[in-house]
């Protein structure tokens, strides 16, 4: 990172003596939303590799039908950590904390988020919480009860690991809540004069909806985990049937958060795709207002569908029916978004670069996962496949095939803005091909495994499933290999990539109307007023409308 010397735009003020510059900023308590965004991004990717390594261990164990690669307790620790790391340390922080923090201030025309210090606090909760969680694996016992930590199992497995897990998740949940508060305040209150809500880039609406979910549902998880920890430490009996408690109440409370959690993971990705497609298809986003309504509908519905994770638990039939209908209904606003994205592409001038390829991969994978989701929403269908590899396949199609593909696409799309240089397109396309093939090879067969009798969270299985499991593991290996061109690309291009200039994609949204990387105050001069972030097909060159301050 070279230091950019720019002429001071303010009267010279005494420089804070200990403020780090250059790359050291990224290891400091910086309150600059762009620094924090990239801190979230890199930290998130580091945890992604940890989670990926854990996945590799799982798929290695599953090469054979016997439990022969690691002790059974260790396997349960590995699968618990895999899920927990991927959700709380990779996806949630990256789509919200990384891209949200970097982009939202640009999109609302602000110099920074509403609460920059809070922003930094939210980020710095993550590395220690993550290290705490991972260290539990090395100091004797990590949690073994899955990322869902159902009691009574979580009350009978080694307590220290479970309590560390709870503590870590509480810290990570708090980080998420602080971020959510910041996004809501920034989007609702910090908009540049003259900028209306319905002129904002779609990503803002996506983050607004996501943050509402974060603020409403994460605290319930926090309370639940506190009660769980009471059961472990103080021998209360909230969820312990032996002490008069109710194990299913835990499930209700847990899923009240954890279902919205999947929207917390996916809605920002929806927002990012809505930014990427118009740019690389040179076409306006189709159906802006319907896209907004869809996001709001998903937020509302997302809060009332949690018990579809409990169709085989102790829920009465009328409750199962309600949740089937509510869950099925979510397919409607989601479907609208997909049709709108397809309509955005239709009639455009589509550049098949890495960002676009990953976005199209997202469309394919997510539609696949969405279809299996509608199937799973039906109670009688779910009774057979609940807690089997069918569900594992479904959610990986959504979370990996969906959100992770968008994360990669977004990295390629905003890489020039973050670094000032262009990433290598050949490596990017290679990355896409390997990831797409590897991912589908790994997870498509798992649908069949679940339908035919393989439960989830097992190290041993019926030998008739051996070949299909091996195919799946080869796919996982391919996914691991696909990381190499990606890593080489992002690291090498940061030093030797072609200079990008301000706006290599000739895009219209505010972050492209400044230098790459942007100055600390985001724009030299006042924030541009962009009332048509998707105004393609109208003008040849992007223009900031009404750039004078009121």
């Amino acid at each position, binding site marked *: 990172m070279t230091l950019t010397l720019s002429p001071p735009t303010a009267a010279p003020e005494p420089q804070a003596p200990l403020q780090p510059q250059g790359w050291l900023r990224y290891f400091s308590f910086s309150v600059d939303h762009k620094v924090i965004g990239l801190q979230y991004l890199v930290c998130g990717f580091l945890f992604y590799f940890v989670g990926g390594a854990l996945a590799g261990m799982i798929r290695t164990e599953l090469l054979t039908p016997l439990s022969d690669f690691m002790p059974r307790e260790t396997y349960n620790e590995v699968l618990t950590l895999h899920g927990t790391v991927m959700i709380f340390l990779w996806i949630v922080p990256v789509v919200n904390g990384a891209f949200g923090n970097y982009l939202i201030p640009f999109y609302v025309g602000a110099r920074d988020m509403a609460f920059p210090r809070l922003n930094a606090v939210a980020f710095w909760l993550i590395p220690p919480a993550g290290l705490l969680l991972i260290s539990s694996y090395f100091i004797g016992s990590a949690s073994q009860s899955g990322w869902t930590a159902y009691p009574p199992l979580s009350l009978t497995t080694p307590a220290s690991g479970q309590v560390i897990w709870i503590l870590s998740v509480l810290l990570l949940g708090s980080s998420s809540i602080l971020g959510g508060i910041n996004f809501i305040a920034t989007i609702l209150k910090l908009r540049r004069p003259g900028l209306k809500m319905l002129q904002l880039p779609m990503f803002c609406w996506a983050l607004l909806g996501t943050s509402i979910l974060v603020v409403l549902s994460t605290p319930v998880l926090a309370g639940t985990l506190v*009660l769980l920890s009471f059961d472990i430490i103080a021998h209360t009996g909230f969820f312990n049937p032996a002490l008069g408690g109710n194990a299913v109440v835990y499930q209700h409370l847990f899923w009240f958060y954890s279902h919205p959690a999947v929207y917390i993971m996916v809605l920002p990705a929806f927002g990012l795709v809505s930014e990427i497609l118009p740019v690389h298809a040179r076409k306006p986003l189709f159906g802006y207002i319907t896209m907004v309504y869809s996001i709001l509908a998903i937020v509302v519905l997302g809060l009332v569908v949690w018990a579809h994770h409990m169709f085989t638990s102790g829920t009465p039939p009328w409750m199962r029916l309600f949740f089937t209908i509510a869950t099925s209904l979510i397919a409607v606003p989601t479907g609208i978004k997909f049709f709108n994205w397809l309509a955005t592409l239709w009639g455009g001038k589509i550049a098949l670069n890495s960002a676009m390829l990953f976005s199209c991969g997202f469309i394919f994978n997510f539609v696949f996962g969405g279809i299996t989701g509608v199937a799973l929403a039906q109670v009688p269908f779910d009774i057979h496949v609940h807690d089997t590899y069918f569900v594992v396949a479904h959610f990986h199609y959504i979370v990996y095939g969906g959100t992770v593909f968008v994360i990669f696409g977004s990295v390629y799309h905003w890489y020039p803005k973050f670094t000032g240089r262009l990433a290598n397109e050949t490596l990017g396309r290679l990355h896409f091909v390997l990831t797409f093939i590897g991912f589908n090879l790994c997870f498509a067969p798992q649908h069949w495994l679940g339908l035919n009798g393989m439960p989830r969270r097992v190290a041993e299985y019926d030998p008739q499933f051996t070949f299909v499991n091996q195919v799946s593991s080869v796919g996982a290996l391919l996914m691991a290999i696909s990381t190499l061109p990606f890593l080489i690309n992002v690291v090498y291009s940061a030093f030797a990539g072609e200079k990008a200039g301000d706006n290599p994609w000739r895009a219209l949204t505010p972050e492209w109307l400044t230098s790459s990387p942007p100055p600390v105050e985001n724009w030299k001069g006042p924030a541009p007023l962009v009332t048509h972030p998707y105004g393609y097909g109208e003008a040849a060159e992007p223009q900031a409308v009404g750039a004078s301050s009121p």
Partner: protein
Amino acid sequence: MTSSSAPSPISPSAASPALAADLSVADAGASQGAEVSHHAQAGHGAEEGHGDFRLFGLATFLVADGMTFAGFFAAYLTFRAVNPLAEGGNYELELVLPTVNTILLLLSSLTFHRAAKAIHQDRTQACRNWLLVTAALGFTFLGGQMVEYFSLPFGLTDNLFASTFYAITGFHGLHVTLGSLMILIIWWQSREGGRVTKANLFPLEATELYWHFVDGIWVLLYGILYLL
């Protein structure tokens, strides 16, 4: 208006040479390390400054906090509905002390409101007095809770009702403790030369909002745990 930025953060990697790059960072240590603007405000005028949204942020946080209580209440009500205790297990809670406590807490919201009104009318001393009364009411409430706890026939782990009772009232009590301490801090900071002045009312307003929230939660709690 200044944003909620901190005094210059001291970074662990302290030995960076102070190069003259990006002077517009303006994390410059301005006034005695107190309020420092993060944005390049000097020279950019009113366009750059945005309003003070810290109360809005606090309100959003209180929504989140409220949801934690909501989770507890939901658990309590569900347990009551589907896990009724055996005969004799359901405890009849004494109502006198909790009702007195409720009145005290409601009064304390009133006195806090008085305090806020007073400082708006430049009657700082009256404000400080009302703050003390509020804090006293808060600590009395806590004292009443302690008395109640010690007089109850059940302990934390006796049964599901007991555990839930202590969890919910305890969590609320933590909030009252925190709130009462904050009131004392505001009382101290509103002295002559302190940080809380008519120009910087946020700490007082924030504590007031928090206090009303805690009061509101108690009313719900009283209704659900004691009256229902």
